[in-house]
């Protein structure tokens, strides 16, 4: 009888201790692992870029032996599923409250970025956005806790507008998906093109996820010198193909933001994409040692081509690691960590990246042309603009005093 009671007591004590251990775990990690919560869509329409962003992030940590600043780094990935901010918030809450993460990262889409930026600021947890490009996040709605490793929607558009004018184009037709990112991505080049002296003769907006681009392509004014667009994902795939099918390829040059021909869809575009010129902060074909190392490692490990989303995830990890090194692992000292994060300068696959005062990258922008090399399509850099920030040649105050691109929709044609 006594022996039995003893066993029962022992089991009970062990169970209780284990339970307490579980509950106490988030608190008990003062000098333990640094936890990073990574929120990414792994199902639904953004599944592909979401997976790339996550894998780029994880690639860095596996190369660094899961260590930085003298501490082990653990990444907890949460699939935010749909595009709804509420779902992302639920995942973020779980990561911060239950898992006790010190840093949040990830985020593909703008509504989620906006929701998580507010949450991160309220909870005082640093957030590194590895994709969502909404200009406001690092401009009017900036926060000391929110950083970006990716881009602001209009930052690579500004050089494209100037470049277009230099090619001799004077009349531009502007086309985009009808939503915030569309206005910002095209607004950037509309602004610099018109400031240089060019004219926008038509703006055409199509709903996000348009099955059939024919009616929109038919609205292109045939007297234009250039058609400049923003489309991404399935829309980009359909648009570029339709542009060729309806006889415009070779008649009017097509230029746009890099997502039009990004590596996620480039090979599927086929010959329809040849000679399309885009602007972006990275290309698989960039010829620098960092990019070669990164792309090869990524493709060996994940058996699929590296994309800009993967690169952005990788850079987010690089920034986190560098900041951790600077504070010698003391991520709990928030002020020091935030300061360290804002001063990072990394050798990213895209080139040298540092952050401006608003926590957005200052990085090289490349003008890319689609070419076939060795039977394979690639985005070949034909020009570059190093150290480009989100405000282009304006001061932050002057830039933010101008009407934002959402408000300029429909007003570029004079």
């Amino acid at each position: 009888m006594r022996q039995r009671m003893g066993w029962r007591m022992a089991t009970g004590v062990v169970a209780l201790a284990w339970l307490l251990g579980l509950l106490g775990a988030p608190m008990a990690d003062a000098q333990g692992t640094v936890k990073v919560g990574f929120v990414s869509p792994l199902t639904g329409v953004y599944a592909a870029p979401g997976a790339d962003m996550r894998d780029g992030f994880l690639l860095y940590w596996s190369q660094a032996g899961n260590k930085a600043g003298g501490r082990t780094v653990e990444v907890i990935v949460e699939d935010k599923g749909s595009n709804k901010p509420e779902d992302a918030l639920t995942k973020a809450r779980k990561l911060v409250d239950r898992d006790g993460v010190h840093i949040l990262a990830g985020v593909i889409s703008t509504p989620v970025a906006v929701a998580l930026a507010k949450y991160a600021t309220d909870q005082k947890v640093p957030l590194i956005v590895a994709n969502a490009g909404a200009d406001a996040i690092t401009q009017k709605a900036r926060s000391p806790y929110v950083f970006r490793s990716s881009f602001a929607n209009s930052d690579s558009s500004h050089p494209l507008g100037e470049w277009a004018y230099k090619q001799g184009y004077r009349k531009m037709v502007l086309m985009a998906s009808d939503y915030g990112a569309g206005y910002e991505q095209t607004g950037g080049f509309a602004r610099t093109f018109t400031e240089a002296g060019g004219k926008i003769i038509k703006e055409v907006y199509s709903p996000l996820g348009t099955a059939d681009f024919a009616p929109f392509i038919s609205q292109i004014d045939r007297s234009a010198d250039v058609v400049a667009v923003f489309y991404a994902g399935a829309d980009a795939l359909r648009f570029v193909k339709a542009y060729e099918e309806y006889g415009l390829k070779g008649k009017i040059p097509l230029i746009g933001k890099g997502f039009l021909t990004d590596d996620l869809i480039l090979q599927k575009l086929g010959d329809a994409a040849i000679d399309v010129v885009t602007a972006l902060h990275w290309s698989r074909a960039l010829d620098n040692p960092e990019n070669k190392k990164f792309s090869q490692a990524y493709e060996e490990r994940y058996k699929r081509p590296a994309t800009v989303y993967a690169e952005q995830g990788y850079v987010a990890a690089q920034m986190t690691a560098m900041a951790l090194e600077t504070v010698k692992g003391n991520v709990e000292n928030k002020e020091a960590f935030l300061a360290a994060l804002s001063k990072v300068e990394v050798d990213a696959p895209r080139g040298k990246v540092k952050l401006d005062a608003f926590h957005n990258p200052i990085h090289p922008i490349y003008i890319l042309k689609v070419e076939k090399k060795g039977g394979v399509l690639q985005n070949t850099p034909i020009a570059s603009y190093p150290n480009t920030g989100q405000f282009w040649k304006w001061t932050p105050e002057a830039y933010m005093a101008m009407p934002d691109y959402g408000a300029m929709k429909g007003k570029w044609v004079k």
Partner: protein
Amino acid sequence: MTFWITQLLNGVSFGMLLFLLAAGLSLIYGLMRILNLAHGSYYLLGAYVGLTVVRYTESFVYAAVAGTAVVTVLGILMERFFLRRFPKQALPQALLTFGFLFIIADLALWIWGGNPQTLPKPQVFAASIWVGNIVFPSYRLFVIAVGIIVGLGLWWLQEGTRLGAMIRAGVDDEEMARGTGVNVSLLSTAVFGLGAFLAALGGIMGGPFVGVYPGADFEILLLAFVVVIIGGLGSLKGAFFGGLLVGLLDNFGKALFPELALFTIFAPMAIILAVRPTGLFGRL
């Protein structure tokens, strides 16, 4: 002039695709009162299977055969082993098909990945046709041809064969049909299979220009519903003319009033629901 002709042909080609998608949905509902929400998945699977087959065989025809065959079998299995468990219960059946929609979507994501893709066009239709100033992809003309042939085929089936008569009888009044010796059970399976076949064919035909990607199933399902509501549930004629109408309205709407692009599909649906809820040719 160029504009109008191009847009007309475009609208008709898109309309034919919509017809293929709506016909199956309409038939299934007409005969069995099952709201098959997995209809979008049939499109998705048909296109994805076709994509894989085309990769290995370079043949559009094999892809079409494989894609439709696989999905037809799936449809039949779904009907025989799952939907039959809830005879006449609309809600459980709809929920069941909804569940399949999600399961197939996830399976497709797992097998084929998340990247948007398009089916390669058959070589013979790869180029665009130039007539004077008008450019038009020859593939879309092919889609129109297929739509018309399928439409005629289905019409002949419905009006000129015994099978068609049995289907019409079943749609009009199931109990009476059973009473006169029609094997409604076998008919149901056959019609479900036919519906799945048409949706998969839609996937193969639409693959080259609409593409296939995660989310396509929901988008297609939505379009099919709009057509079926406008054309009328249970009516093949409704699916055909509803599809044509939606295709044309959508196309011209977007071309002439781009600010209203989102409305061009839903406005006609709303109008029909208000004015003639059973749809243009519906009898239910």
